[in-house]
């Protein structure tokens, strides 16, 4: 519980500073400080337990089905990192308050900072790899916000974007790696994965997992060749840089290396990949750092170099190297945070960070100069400071490593060269800033910074000295507990100490120090040589080129696919569908022609012929819309006959009633649309469309044929067997609709209702005043045919009776709510057709919305009703009821549900049709009003009346 609290405190606490900032920036700083220290106190409370070798775990299931738990673990490694994150975090909170301009009220800044802090804590305390990935991505996102904090500056935005692109992509790779690991091990729990080294190493997927995980680690910790984002992230405010590049963000990468160390370390692949990346990074970055004139730029490259050092140590894979790596993580945090903060102080007080324009600041700020010198000396590895200790350990390990087939002297030499370069840039950092001649003028007159800026540096520098002098006392317990968590095994006895006697590593240190100093003296020549050297292909330009290519490719694709023509989109969509549909036929072969074949009889052949002719006719005559529609109606009738023939009475009933309603609907719409379609497409275009249509038809036909001739394996037996005993109905189709799959039906009538309301909204919002030019005859002036009127009026009661009959028997014979509702609707629509809108509207409810609501309510309440009996939603009950004259009826609660369906369907269908009818009426009335209006004013008035629905629907027939 306490572990989750440590992570959640900053994450949730991120909401506080923006609120507190309303009361002033100091309140925001206090709030953040209290949150940070609170989490630190919680952590410290459990520290001794961990240092004694304990591990704390806490786990809650999240999505257990996929092995995703919210589980946390605090071991030595997690403790070290969490202490650094919170400890340095607290110092940053203090530093940022003094550093950021007064005009900034800091609410947003501290919110981002706490969010980032929580995400980092989540990474280092997660016991579930998937959870770790989630926090990992959260660090990428929140660091994006922090780096881009100066969002008004172009560099800030670009730097943030680059950091997000690189580390985000790495996070994606890490997710892949974690999924592979989880697949191999069968669990995403870190504890299980760390125990499964043998299983993982034996798996053929091990190299994939390793590669992906390393991609994640290298991008995050800016290892060559993914280092280029880090210098650009320097656009962030200095407190952010000091935090991200000392204790957190980039350390997440090396944390990951340390975390998976027990699983992968010691193999050749690990040595070459991790050790190789470390070696390349440590040297190249140290070399590049020499030529940076921006203080933060120099520190950025030195950070990359030191991360390379840590990576190299973990890459070596020995327990001692692991101890050294962990120790250097701690040391680097202390001096690098201090140096970033001093760079910030210089910038803050002198107004520039450009080394070329700095110098002699020791007179203006002697204390800061001293602090910076000590911190830089620690970075350079000068005894007796902490950096010296871990660098000695690196030399020691480099001497003993067996790096594949490389000669034994190579690795130590590279390491010494890197150390030498590091000495040079450290001297340059301090000497060119604080010593030497001062420039004639600074943008600001420099002086010692306020307490809030210097105090954090003092703390960190004190740590550098103290750890250097008494490593066994101060750092050893933490480092050893972390290192044993890294290796996952007992550590060899090693004594952290300043003095190990006169030995080779000491000689190497001396060479580096002296050589570095000499190089600093002769740096002029080096700079000249560097300038004359071949232009280095910068990773940044490759990144930019890749980005540009990506964007222009995307633009090209968009331009060519998305030209604004819906016809083209549809053609592309159809073409793509055909390709996707055809490919399985080609790959998996053609399996048709099985046992099923029904003999062809003459009526079927005739029906088939009729269907084919009318379907083709619908398309062929589409420019003459009424003929096309008539053809479509015939298709519908043949489809109905098809259902009759192939044993689907319910479908036939549904289809025929829907057919009537649909055709009437389309006719009504056609009344308001042009009656013909202009010929617009070229011959070529029609040919192309025919080709696509033909291919689509052929594809679907083959698919249908393949299915029809394959053996059938249906789950129908269950429904057939349970329909009567379970659902109380003999009509299995209806029982499926209202009982077995009642929830689906409930959804579907809801959709139907929504469609009806949507149509109502569309019609309601229609502007009046538009009349299609080719409207010559006004329908409402026609006499309604007398015979039709008489028949329709006579028919109504019978039709309603039939629909009740269909409804009641629906559970046991063809019929049911859907069909009954459609039959009722057809009967009502017949009145519209026979008597006109005006007459019908006066006799029928104008509003059909409530009916939809009633239907949904009845169906929903029936479902909810089963809760009262302790059964799940929509559980049905049934029993026999005897109704006089009708007979023995099997009544089920499903019938009540069906009643809901009945109302909802009537409501939706009638809502749709009555609205269209109203629309047609309104247009006609408008036209007539216009004709009769004598003056312009009257005309406008009439239009307004119609628009406001203040009109009477026609005269009675």
């Amino acid at each position, binding site marked *: 519980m306490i572990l989750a609290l440590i992570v959640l405190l900053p994450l949730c606490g991120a909401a506080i500073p923006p609120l507190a900032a309303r009361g002033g920036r100091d309140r925001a700083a206090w709030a953040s400080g209290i949150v940070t220290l609170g989490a630190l106190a919680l952590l410290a409370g459990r520290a001794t337990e961990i240092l004694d070798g304990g591990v704390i775990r806490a786990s809650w299931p999240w999505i257990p089905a996929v092995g995703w738990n919210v589980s946390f673990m605090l071991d030595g490694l997690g403790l070290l990192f969490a202490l650094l994150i919170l400890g340095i975090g607290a110092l940053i909170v203090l530093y940022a308050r003094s550093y950021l301009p007064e005009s900034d009220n800091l609410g947003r800044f501290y919110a981002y900072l706490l969010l980032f802090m929580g995400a980092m804590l989540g990474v280092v305390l997660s016991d579930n790899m998937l959870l770790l990935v989630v926090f990992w991505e959260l660090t990428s996102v929140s660091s994006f916000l922090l780096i881009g904090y100066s969002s008004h500056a172009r560099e800030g935005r670009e730097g943030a974007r680059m950091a997000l692109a690189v580390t985000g992509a790495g996070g994606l790779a890490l997710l892949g790696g974690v999924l592979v690991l989880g697949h191999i091990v069968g669990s995403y729990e870190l504890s299980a994965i760390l125990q499964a080294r043998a299983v993982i190493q034996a798996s053929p997927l091990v190299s994939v997992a390793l590669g992906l995980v390393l991609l994640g680690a290298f991008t995050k910790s800016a290892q060559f060749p993914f280092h280029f984002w880090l210098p650009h992230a320097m656009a962030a405010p200095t407190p952010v840089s000091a935090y991200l590049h000392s204790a957190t963000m980039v350390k997440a990468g090396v944390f990951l290396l340390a975390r998976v160390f027990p699983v992968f370390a010691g193999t050749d692949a690990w040595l070459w990949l991790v050790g190789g990346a470390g070696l390349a990074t440590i040297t190249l970055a140290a070399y590049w750092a020499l030529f940076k004139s921006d203080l933060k730029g120099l520190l950025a490259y030195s950070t990359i170099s030191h991360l390379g050092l840590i990576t190299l140590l973990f890459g070596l894979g020995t327990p001692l190297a692991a101890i050294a790596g962990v120790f250097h993580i701690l040391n680097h945090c202390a001096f690098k945070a201090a140096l970033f903060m001093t760079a910030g102080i210089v910038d803050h007080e002198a107004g520039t960070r450009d080394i070329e324009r700095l110098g002699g600041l020791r007179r203006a700020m002697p204390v800061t100069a001293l602090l910076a010198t000590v911190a830089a000396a620690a970075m350079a590895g000068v005894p007796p400071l902490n950096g010296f200790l871990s660098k000695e350990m690196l030399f020691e390990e480099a001497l003993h490593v067996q790096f594949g087939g490389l000669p034994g002297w190579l690795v130590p030499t590279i390491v010494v060269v890197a150390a030498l370069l590091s000495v040079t840039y450290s001297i340059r950092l301090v000497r060119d800033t604080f010593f030497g001649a001062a420039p004639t003028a600074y943008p600001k007159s420099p002086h010692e910074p306020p307490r809030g800026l210097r105090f954090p540096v003092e703390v960190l520098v004190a740590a550098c000295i103290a750890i250097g002098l008494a490593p066994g006392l101060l750092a050893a317990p933490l480092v050893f507990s972390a290192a044993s968590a890294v290796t996952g095994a007992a550590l060899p006895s090693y004594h952290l100490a300043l003095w190990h006697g006169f030995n080779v590593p000491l000689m190497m240190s001396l060479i580096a120090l002296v050589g570095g100093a000499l190089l600093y003296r002769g740096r002029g020549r080096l700079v000249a040589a560097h300038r004359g050297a071949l232009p280095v292909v910068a990773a940044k330009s490759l990144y930019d080129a890749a980005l540009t290519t990506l964007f222009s490719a995307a633009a090209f694709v968009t331009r060519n696919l998305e030209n604004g023509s819906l016809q083209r989109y549809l053609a592309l969509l159809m073409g793509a569908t055909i390709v996707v549909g055809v490919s399985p036929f080609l790959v998996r072969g053609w399996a048709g022609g099985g046992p099923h*074949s029904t003999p062809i009889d003459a009526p079927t052949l005739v029906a088939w012929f009729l269907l084919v002719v009318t379907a083709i006719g619908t398309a062929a005559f589409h420019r003459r819309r009424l003929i096309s529609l008539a053809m479509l109606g015939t298709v519908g009738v043949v489809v109905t006959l098809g259902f009759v023939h*192939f044993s689907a009475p319910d479908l036939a009933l549904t289809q025929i009633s829907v057919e009537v309603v649909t055709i009437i*609907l389309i006719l009504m719409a056609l009344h308001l649309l042009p009656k013909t379609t202009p010929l617009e497409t070229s011959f070529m275009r029609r040919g192309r469309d025919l080709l696509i249509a033909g291919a689509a038809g052929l594809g679907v036909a083959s698919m249908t044929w393949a299915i029809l001739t394959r053996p059938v394996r249906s789950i129908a037996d269950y429904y057939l067997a349970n329909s009567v005993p379970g659902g109380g109905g003999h009509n299995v189709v209806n029982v499926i609709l209202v009982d077995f799959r009642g929830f689906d039906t409930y959804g579907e009538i809801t959709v139907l209702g929504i469609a*009806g309301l949507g149509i109502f909204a569309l019609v309601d919002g229609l502007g009046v005043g538009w009349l299609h030019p080719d409207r010559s005859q006004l329908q409402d002036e026609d006499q309604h045919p007398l015979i039709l009127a008489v028949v329709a009026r006579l028919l109504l009661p019978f039709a309603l009776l039939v629909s009740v009959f269909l409804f009641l028997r629906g559970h046991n014979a*063809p019929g049911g709510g859907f069909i009954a509702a459609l039959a009722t609707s057809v009967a009502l629509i017949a009145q519209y057709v026979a008597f006109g809108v005006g007459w019908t509207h006066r006799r029928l409810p104008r509003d059909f919305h409530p009916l939809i609501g009633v239907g949904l309510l009845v169906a929903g309440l029936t479902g909810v009703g089963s809760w009262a009996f302790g059964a799940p939603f929509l559980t049905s009950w049934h029993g026999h009821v005897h109704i006089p004259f009708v007979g023995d009826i099997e009544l089920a609660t499903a019938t009540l549900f069906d009643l809901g369906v009945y109302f909802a369907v009537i409501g939706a269908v009638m809502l749709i049709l009555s609205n269209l009818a109203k629309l047609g009426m309104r247009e006609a009335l408008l036209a007539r009003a216009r004709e009769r209006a004598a003056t312009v004013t009257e005309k406008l008035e009439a239009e307004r009346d119609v628009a406001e629905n203040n009109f009477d629907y026609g005269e009675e027939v």
Partner: protein
Amino acid sequence: MEVLFASAVGVLVAAGVYLLLRARTFPVVLGLALISYAVNFYIFAMGRLRVGLEPIISEEATAYVDPIPQALVLTAIVIGFAMTAFVLVLALRANFDLGNDHVDGRPPEGER
């Protein structure tokens, strides 16, 4: 019979797709209706073609037709109606608001 049924579905799809690719809204609506028929038939085909059976439990019946595709198609027919109606009204609305019934909302160059 299977060949007839399959080819009928194919013809419905072909005619429907051809209409879908037209430039005016009304043929597109008709095309959608045709494709609805085809899709319903296609889903129906999952239960195979059976003649002279029923999905209704009775003492006399010896075999039944597969009721599941029928139940699916039944709701599909009704939902298909709602979709056709909605697209139709959308087409009407576009025609009212834009003054033409081209699918892109504007007639091609050279015509108004």
